[in-house]
């Protein structure tokens, strides 16, 4: 431990902690722009400067380790004046069209400018002289260089969390910018659309491509039937966008708000998450049987989950050789979309052409996924519009709804029922746990041998998790699995995914089933979730997800009554002909660079 003084108050922090860490411990606020808890130190924006007694220069508190006996002042005239100049200089190169901006009222630069009462700009406005580029090529996000303050959070995110580096710092001096490979459109580079950069951008240089107006138009159009699905992770994060504490569970309020907004039918992606377990669990068992009993060499193991569209695009670029290992199951979002304009429209006697299918996702890659040409199994675009958790938060505000005092409502029926197994899809390890709860029971006729169905070894925020389940007491159909040890792995964040892929490629890991989610923490940490997202907030959202699971009456996908019914009435068997037509997909090889 080292002990130092900040604003004349003593504080002790572990060796290696920064002055900023120490200040936070004392509840002293220091503004930051380039600093982010998830990322390495950059120290390039300088807005966090503080005065150190005995030092001529101001020091960047986010980068300077605390030392024994340091005497730090955070609010002297020098500090204040320096911070103001730094913000003014950033503003000189920032298009400050705040009222038109997607991040208005939720912009870190705007907040610092406000905190330091920046009025008339004292420096020349350099924005108009610059030929800035706005890249709208991705269906998921917009990159607007005129808003960029070059803090490089996005670059560090793409490199450190996601091992993608689709963007890097290019050029220098006044020309410096964040660029893709040779300024190619973001739609034509290795970007996975995960939106982690969007979640970390302090300004609106990177924002999701918004479809709020299109959804309002659909709601107001009397000739359309708007059906909404909400992803598992949204219900434990939406509250943050509306002023509630991180980890607040707001499922009922969210449903109520959507109904008040005028959505015709509020349904649940959790329903198709349960369906995914039926399809993916069956697919895994069939693959195991073909590989282990029939000796089929063509069968690719391990099988990888396919729920996360960021992960899908990553493997399509980086490890196309392993595309046969991906489960052919569509993600729950796309299964829902395909069923909304077939099964659901039929049941409700609606013309599928008039059904507008909207999904609320913690994700920006889902916008890309919905646009994939493969995702038109219903004969229409299966999911018309994808909104992030943040966009839904904005719409609820626009509708003038007081979220906090809303009375909870329940999902509508037909594709509104779900189980605890579905809700845990939102956290890393959740798909694995849900799949094991069902697959184990199919094979042995008994519940998974974990207390209260909680498969703890697959839970938690460790980057790569491994577990094995010994299969004993199989029913007759699955006798060949008797005594087998099912080996599984779970990775979240593409940097961890890449580690698993390298281990698989190099023959260093023998897994049967691997769950991969593109975002740190899984969907609860998705690129479309409220800003900020960091480790502490991820943990609170994960806790909320498992609480949500615990309080469900049904906690195994195969017990979802609507799932049982849809197979009986419409789909036939899991992995059957109709299921394949609507619920499964294929992948494409993409360039690695």
């Amino acid at each position, binding site marked *: 431990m080292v002990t130092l003084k900040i604003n004349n108050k003593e504080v002790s922090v572990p060796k290696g902690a920064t002055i900023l860490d120490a200040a936070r411990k004392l509840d002293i606020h220091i503004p930051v722009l380039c600093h982010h808890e998830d990322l390495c130190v950059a120290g390039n924006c300088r807005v966090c400067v503080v005065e150190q007694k005995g030092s001529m220069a101001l020091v960047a508190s986010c980068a300077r380790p605390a030392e024994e006996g340091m005497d730090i002042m955070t609010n002297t005239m020098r500090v204040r004046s320096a911070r103001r100049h730094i913000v003014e200089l950033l503003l000189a190169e920032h298009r400050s069209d705040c009222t038109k901006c997607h991040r208005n009222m939720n912009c870190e630069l705007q907040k610092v400018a406000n905190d330091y009462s920046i009025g008339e700009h004292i420096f020349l406005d350099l924005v108009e002289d610059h030929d800035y580029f706005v890249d709208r090529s991705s269906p998921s996000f917009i990159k607007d260089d005129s808003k960029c303050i070059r803090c490089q959070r996005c670059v560090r995110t793409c490199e450190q969390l996601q091992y993608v580096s689709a963007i*890097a*710092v*290019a050029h220098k001096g006044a020309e410096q910018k964040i*660029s*893709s*490979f040779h300024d190619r459109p973001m739609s034509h580079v*290795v970007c996975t659309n995960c939106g982690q950069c969007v979640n970390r951008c302090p300004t609106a240089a990177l924002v999701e491509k918004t479809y709020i107006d299109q959804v309002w138009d659909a709601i107001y159009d009397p000739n359309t039937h708007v059906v909404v699905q909400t992803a598992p992770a949204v219900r434990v994060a939406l509250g943050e966008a509306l002023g509630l504490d991180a980890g607040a569970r707001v499922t009922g309020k969210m449903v109520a708000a959507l109904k008040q907004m005028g959505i015709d039918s509020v349904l649940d992606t959790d329903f198709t998450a349960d369906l995914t377990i039926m399809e993916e669990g069956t697919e895994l068992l069939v693959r195991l049987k073909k590989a282990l009993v029939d000796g089929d060499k063509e069968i690719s193991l391990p099988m990888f989950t396919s729920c996360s569209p960021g992960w899908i695009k990553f493997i399509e670029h980086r490890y196309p050789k392993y595309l046969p290992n991906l489960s052919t199951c569509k993600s729950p979002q796309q299964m829902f979309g395909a069923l909304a304009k077939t099964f659901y429209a039929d049941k409700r006697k609606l013309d599928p052409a008039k059904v507008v299918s909207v999904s609320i996702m913690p994700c920006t890659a889902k916008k890309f996924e919905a646009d994939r040409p493969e995702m038109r199994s219903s004969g229409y675009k299966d999911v018309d519009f994808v909104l992030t958790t943040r966009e839904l938060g904005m719409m609820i505000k626009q509708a003038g709804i007081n979220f906090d005092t809303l009375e909870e409502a329940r999902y509508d029926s037909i594709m509104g029922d779900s189980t605890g197994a579905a809700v845990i899809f939102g956290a890393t390890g959740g798909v694995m746990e849900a799949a094991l709860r069902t697959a184990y029971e199919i094979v042995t006729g008994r519940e998974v041998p974990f207390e209260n169905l909680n498969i703890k070894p697959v839970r938690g925020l460790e980057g790569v998790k491994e577990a094995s389940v010994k299969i004993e007491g199989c029913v007759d159909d699955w006798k060949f699995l008797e005594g087998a040890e099912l080996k599984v792995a779970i990775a979240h964040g593409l940097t961890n995914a890449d580690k698993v892929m390298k281990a698989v490629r190099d023959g260093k890991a023998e897994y049967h089933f691997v769950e991969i989610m593109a975002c740190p923490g899984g969907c609860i940490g998705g690129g479309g979730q409220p800003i900020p997202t960091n480790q502490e907030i991820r943990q609170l959202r994960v806790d909320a997800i498992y609480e949500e699971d615990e309080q469900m009456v049904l906690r195994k996908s195969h017990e979802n009554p609507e799932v049982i019914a849809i197979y009986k009435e419409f789909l036939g068997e899991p992995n059957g002909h109709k299921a394949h037509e609507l619920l499964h997909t294929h992948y494409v090889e993409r360039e*690695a660079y």
Partner: protein
Amino acid sequence: MYQLGNLVQELSDKYGRDRASLMPILQCIVKKHNYLTDEAMVEVAKELDLSAAEVYGTASFYSFLDTEERGRFVIRVCRTISCSMKGKEDIMQTLEDLLKIEVGDTTADKQFTLLETNCIGWCHKAPAMLINDMPYTELTEDKVIEIIKEYMQK
């Protein structure tokens, strides 16, 4: 550039495949091919297990690692203050007239590219320019014509 893959491989064998090898490899490619094509940057990225954006980011930082097409002879006229005061504008005008291109452009026959550069350290003998690695100093209009004519013969 059909032998590009081989060249990048040879250079990586020579300099190594860690991040620090990126600069010498890029420099050698520029020396050989005048500039870095997109294909070359992708080859380097593959060989060094970097992303193409990172290679481009590094290359674009350095004025002498061009990522746009360049001619066989790259002329860089010093634009900093000493050279400006000693008649850099006239030198530039003479070059533009002679080569029939504007600053930033490359001649149709891909022989010459005309650029400006920041200080090259010849302030005491201004105005100055570089042609590839060779400095030319105390330039006058006549001197420039003579030098360029010489290069045209090469």
